[in-house]
């Protein structure tokens, strides 16, 4: 039993943390997170040069990481910095491309910072891969897609989009040009896109790879958990620091016991969030991957909501302002529960699994 990360991983975390502190502050982040292309292409290239996409991919597939713990190390730092760069889509795309051995596209992602997004969910099917409504039909050599993919993370800046669509053999994966999509910011910053497919031509990567797509989603869910842990740590620190300097009725408000106890309850939940994320990371890629990712995503959904709402409340007015960095952490933590299944979605999956 050992809860310390390897030397390599710690170095990666340190260099990422230094990079964000020095090169990509919250002000720089906010300046790009709500305007096309919803991230900073120059910084993106720097992160690629730092090897971040490669850290999310296994060695056999051309990277130098790709395990649950690698994902956690990277996304915890992204969460601490509220990084708006499209690494969630990079992770999920490269993960599924690794499984289905689509090495050409994969290489471009890992080595050149090529941006590819994964599009699974739809307005009327917001969370369940097995219920995908988008269809793929083959006419001679040509595959055509029909459907509507919504809120594709990273889709606003991607050049290609991987679309999960129903074929005669199951749920397959298809590549379309991102020019068909329409990008926008999300309320917590960073870009997403909708993609409306009307007899849209596509390259077939696999006619049936549901399990591979689900595991890529699981990797994404784990990444969101780690990102939340990083963001919670920072928001909690900011709240403590603010209460230590803010006065009311002539007293530093950090001395008010009711507020202290709420800070403690937040800290306890953050430790629990860290623990369940570590546990889920250790199960990624095993038979228990879905189960533990659901457990983690449920606990993270509860913990992140508590931490975000309490941080806002304890800050008072300042926490409600755009200018104060904490408000952006709040938004990110709340919206993470909306990504790839919230606490209700995942608890219901666990109950269904127990009943099965």
């Amino acid at each position: 039993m050992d809860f310390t990360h390897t030397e390599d991983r710690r170095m990666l975390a340190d260099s990422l943390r230094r990079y964000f502190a020095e090169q990509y502050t919250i002000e720089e982040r906010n300046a790009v997170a709500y305007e096309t292309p919803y991230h900073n292409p120059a910084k993106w290239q720097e992160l690629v040069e730092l090897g971040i996409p490669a850290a999310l991919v296994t060695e056999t597939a051309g990277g130098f990481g790709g395990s649950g713990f690698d994902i956690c190390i990277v996304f915890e730092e992204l969460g601490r910095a509220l990084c708006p760069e499209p690494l969630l889509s990079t992770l999920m795309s490269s993960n599924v491309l690794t499984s289905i051995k689509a090495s050409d596209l994969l290489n471009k992602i890992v080595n050149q910072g090529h941006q590819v997004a994964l599009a699974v969910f739809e307005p009327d099917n917001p969370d369940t891969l097995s219920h995908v409504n988008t269809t793929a039909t083959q006419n001679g050599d040509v595959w055509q897609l029909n459907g509507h993919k919504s809120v594709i993370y990273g889709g606003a800046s991607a050049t290609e989009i991987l679309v999960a669509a129903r074929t005669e053999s199951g749920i397959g994966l298809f590549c379309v040009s991102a020019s068909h999509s329409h990008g926008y910011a999300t309320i917590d910053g960073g870009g997403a896109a909708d993609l409306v497919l009307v007899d849209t031509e596509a390259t077939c990567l696999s006619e049936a790879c549901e399990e591979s797509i689900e595991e890529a989603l699981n990797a994404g869910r784990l990444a969101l958990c780690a990102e939340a842990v990083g963001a919670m740590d920072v928001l909690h620190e900011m709240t403590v620091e603010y209460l230590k300097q803010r006065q009311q009725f002539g007293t530093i408000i950090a001395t008010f016991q009711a507020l202290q106890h709420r800070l403690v309850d937040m800290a306890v939940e953050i430790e629990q969030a860290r623990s369940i994320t570590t546990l889920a990371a250790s199960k990624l890629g095993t038979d228990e991957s879905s189960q533990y990712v659901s457990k983690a995503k449920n606990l993270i959904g509860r913990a992140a909501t508590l931490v975000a709402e309490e941080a806002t409340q304890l800050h008072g007015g300042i926490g409600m302002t755009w200018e104060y960095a904490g408000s952006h952490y709040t938004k990110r933590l709340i919206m993470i529960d909306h990504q790839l299944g919230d606490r209700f979605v995942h608890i219901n999956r666990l109950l269904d699994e127990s009943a099965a």
Partner: protein
Amino acid sequence: MDLTFTPEEFAFRDEVRAFLADSLPADLAEKGHNGEELTKPDMERWHALLNERGWLAVTWPVENGGTGWSAVERHIFEEECALANAPRIVPFGLNMLGPVLIKFGSDEQKKQILPRILDGTDWWCQGYSEPGAGSDLASLKTKAERDGDDYVINGQKTWTTLGQHADRIFCLVRTSTDGKPQEGISFILVDLDTPGIEMRPIKLIEGGHEVNEVFFTDVRVPASNLVGEENQGWTIAKYLLTHERTNIAGVGFSTRDLQRLQALTEKVTRNGKPLTEDAVFMSRLKELEIDLEALRITNLRMLQKAKDGAAPGPEASMLKIKGTVIRQGIGALYRTALGPNAAPYLPDVENLPEEFDFDMPEESATAAATYFNNRKLSIFGGSNEIQRNIIAKEMLRG
């Protein structure tokens, strides 16, 4: 014990309903339903319609041009307006300054100012909070120094809601540093076009512009703009606090929000099934519904208590706490019901091309923004922590 309205109260409710059905413009109701921001002309239009009906100044006596309504009538009116998605009456002139002038103002002030509030000539905003004095008003620092027939004001106010639309501001200012901090405060009226005033927007968490900072640099105001006596400001502020607290439970708003949420659950899918089949989610919703039904009764019980002459203090604080918790809880479930589709940033989603229609109710686009904006409910106007302190003080007395 009788939980139904009297025949008179039912008749009044029907009258309000009929008025809303006839007079509330459809575009305003739709904006209300969708949680969209109202423009200044929107609000002015609604004020004018209410004024025409004689229903604009719901907290003023009849002799001043108000409705003279009882607390129950006011409650009925506010609940019906909320359910009909009518705009909220902008309270600063009508429900805050108005009652203050009627109680403390000179005859001249009443004659000059009240009609201009009613007819919309003046739009007032509030200058209370300061960067270092939010819940703790007694520590305010903005100074008004007497100089001949004028006061000269220096300092900064903040959280001035809808100040960007206003012509005039009423302020609490420090006129003395002798004695206890609350003894040196005065209540004064200021034209916003007086030289030396600068208003800057504060962007809120969800991106909206609703509140402002106001900076005063050597702002010269005639001494006749003082309301009441010099250094009487604390008394006035405390009086106003009880008037500010009508509709504090927000039962009407929460009821409307809950109806929207219930309608939404019929339309969305989770885990491949209708959301209505998710007992875990639906039980949260149902418990909020129960809490809200209880709060409605709690509110009515406390209205009666107020009518019977009891002091409103701790009861109003309870209504504030539970009312905001319930309303925020409903808002949180609403955005949750939308899943990932709650994520798009409002200014962007409004520009989506036609074919990218989410097939969601119109009001869903504002769900996340409204949720974040509504975190203010438990913070502004005396945070829920301050409300708990007030109740505890009363509880532990004696």
